[in-house]
């Protein structure tokens, strides 16, 4: 059974600081996703990582995937208040064949001035 673990689960940051969220998973998969969820809202797709060594960047967020280590990271650079949200990683349980995503518990990020 695939398990996806995120850490930390809660993260309080000051504006301007850098930090990394980690996502570990227990079985082989080449497909990993990062989503953002604002309170009371839906999930917004941030990154799709489809192969070992994949790195994607959008604004102050950068995601990477190491399939050998079964690890993905979401790096936040110079955080701003607008990044406050809950961030989820999700791994395709079928390794990409089924679309059954197993989600981590989420990292609630709070960026303070």
């Amino acid at each position, binding site marked *: 059974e695939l398990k996806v673990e995120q850490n930390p689960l809660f993260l309080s940051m000051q504006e301007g600081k850098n930090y990394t969220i980690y996502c570990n998973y227990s079985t082989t998969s080449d497909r990993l996703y990062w*989503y953002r969820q604002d309170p009371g809202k*839906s*999930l917004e797709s941030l990154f799709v990582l489809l192969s070992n060594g994949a790195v994607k960047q959008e604004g102050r967020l950068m995601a990477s995937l190491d399939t050998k280590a079964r690890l993905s990271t979401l790096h936040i650079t110079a955080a701003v208040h607008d990044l406050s949200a809950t961030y989820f990683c999700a791994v395709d349980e079928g390794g990409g064949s*089924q*679309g*059954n*995503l197993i*989600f981590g518990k*989420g990292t609630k990020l709070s960026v303070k001035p």
Partner: protein
Amino acid sequence: DTAVSQTPKYLVTQMGNDKSIKCEQNLGHDTMYWYKQDSKKFLKIMFSYNNKELIINETVPNRFSPKSPDKAHLNLHINSLELGDSAVYFCASSHLSFEQFFGPGTRLTVL
């Protein structure tokens, strides 16, 4: 707007009732999903469905059943509602099994 939509947004009902949540996508996707997000924000897949195959998470009670009248719709029927069914239910869709796009969610409260 191209999107995944769900109705209703809020649903309050009594224990034992039967209810349905509707989901529609106009993205031209071939696969649709239902997820449950509990009070601790934990997301769990319930079903995935394309026009060929329904994959059911074995932990989902058989009181829950997806029904797809066509490729653009996947409705969720829930029989004999229980208190523990209270949650936010999200519909999602994708092309094959690629990136999933989520609907706005339906907050179900069972009294």
